[in-house]
């Protein structure tokens, strides 16, 4: 179980971005996180994955702090895949840095074998995003923070990617925090959803109107 207890965070000399946020992510659970631009969704994701250190509060995995060295059981999938890969490495090497997925696993995520010999610049954002998702599924990973990972994909590929991720998550029982602006996507993927606004988390019930502006398109 991944647990965030009373997290508070602010960037230097700015007003607090996240204030006393607590969140629990169980193994095999899918939790959605929405919020306006700049509300701190990605920052919360980075705090959970250990990329940022909270000013107060702590992130615990099974009751203990996140490991400092070695493979992190909580992996963060960033918004921009082109920044998440070394531009001087071929895609095959980028994948192998984490693990060696089988051909079937590659196929499940729509990764074509001929991409592996190319450099990241020769792939589209969507193609790179699929590589990044597959890379993050290294053995030993137990939680994924998926930060807007399907925004660069066309609707059909989006469905394929989420389906493959869902299948893999069910098989290996990892918990996923899906960060997205797309409330319809969150409704479909995550039984439990939160809305981040003003640095606080609000739990959304079945009726999303309660936590998001009813005038906004859904």
């Amino acid at each position, binding site marked *: 179980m991944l647990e965030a207890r009373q997290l508070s965070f602010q960037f230097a000399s700015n007003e607090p971005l996240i204030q006393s946020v607590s969140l629990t992510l169980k193994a095999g659970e899918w939790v959605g996180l929405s919020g306006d631009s700049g509300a701190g969704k990605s920052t919360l994701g980075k705090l959970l994955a250990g*990329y940022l250190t909270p000013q107060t509060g702590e992130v615990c995995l099974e009751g203990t702090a996140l490991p400092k060295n070695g*493979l992190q059981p909580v992996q963060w999938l960033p918004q921009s895949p082109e*920044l*998440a890969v070394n531009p001087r490495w071929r895609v095959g090497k980028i994948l192998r840095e984490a693990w060696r997925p089988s051909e079937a696993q590659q196929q499940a995520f729509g990764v074509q074998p001929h991409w592996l010999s190319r450099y990241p610049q020769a792939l589209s954002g969507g193609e790179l995003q699929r590589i990044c998702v597959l890379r993050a599924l290294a053995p030993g990973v137990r939680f994924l923070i998926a930060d807007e990972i399907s925004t660069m994909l066309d609707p059909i590929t989006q469905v394929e990617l989420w389906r493959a991720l869902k299948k893999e998550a069910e098989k290996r029982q990892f918990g996923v925090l899906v960060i997205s602006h797309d409330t319809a996507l969150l409704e479909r993927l995550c039984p439990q959803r939160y809305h981040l606004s003003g640095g606080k988390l609000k739990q959304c019930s079945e009726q999303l109107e309660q936590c998001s502006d009813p005038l906004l398109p859904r």
Partner: protein
Amino acid sequence: MKQAQLRHYIQPRFGTQPRLRAAFSLSITILLVIGLVASQWLLGDSPQQMQFDARLAPPSGDHWLGTDALGRELWARTLAGLALSFWVGCLAALFSTLIALSLAALASMSRRLDALVSLLIDTLLSVPHLILLMLIAFALGGGTQAVIIAVAVTHWPSLTRVLRAELLQLRQAPYVRISQALGKSRWFVLYSHMLPHLLPHCLVGALLLFPHAILHEAALTFLGFGLSPSQPAIGVLLADAMRYLSGGYWWLGVFPGLGLLLMVLGFERLASHLRRAL
């Protein structure tokens, strides 16, 4: 608006030029360096051969660039001096770059080390260059080795600053953070993700250090703290020329000085072209 449009059309066509220019100046420099090194075998001991019947002869058909007070051919001595300067400059720039790279890598490992390296950089930059050079060369007893060490030990700070800043920025790059999160060691991340990115900076940095190193070697030798007066170094030639300038023997100073100027300018041009191309 129109200008922006024009630039949009023009730029792609000329976009390949920096690389062409860099390749051009690189090939010219390589040719000149090969010529300079090869000339040392062809020259043999002619830079040291004295002709007492042709002392202080002005440039002519027999003595292309004139002769010095001991009747030694100035063209042979200038070539030999430039070759010597080239080797000293090369080695000093190489060692300087290695020091800069190691210190920058060290600074990227932890905050304390970073503060220490920054302190070292500031300390060294606050001491006048030439005085430090003279002190080190003097302490090491002069000679080629002492000059190389003195130049190498005093020229790394500015390059270290550039490399350190680059590494600090790289350390925050998502792909570097992800590699760490995937369980890769600090050394692996430094060696495979960060250092390859720094190589172009190192190459240009070393090339920019090279003219500095040559000039400082010549200055040290001119002041008598560097190479031995028996070696045909540019600094020695210029120091010799000083004694005869008032007698109107202009060639003694002009040709070695011009050779040094051309070499320094050539490498400076190459470095600036490479910086734009890489």
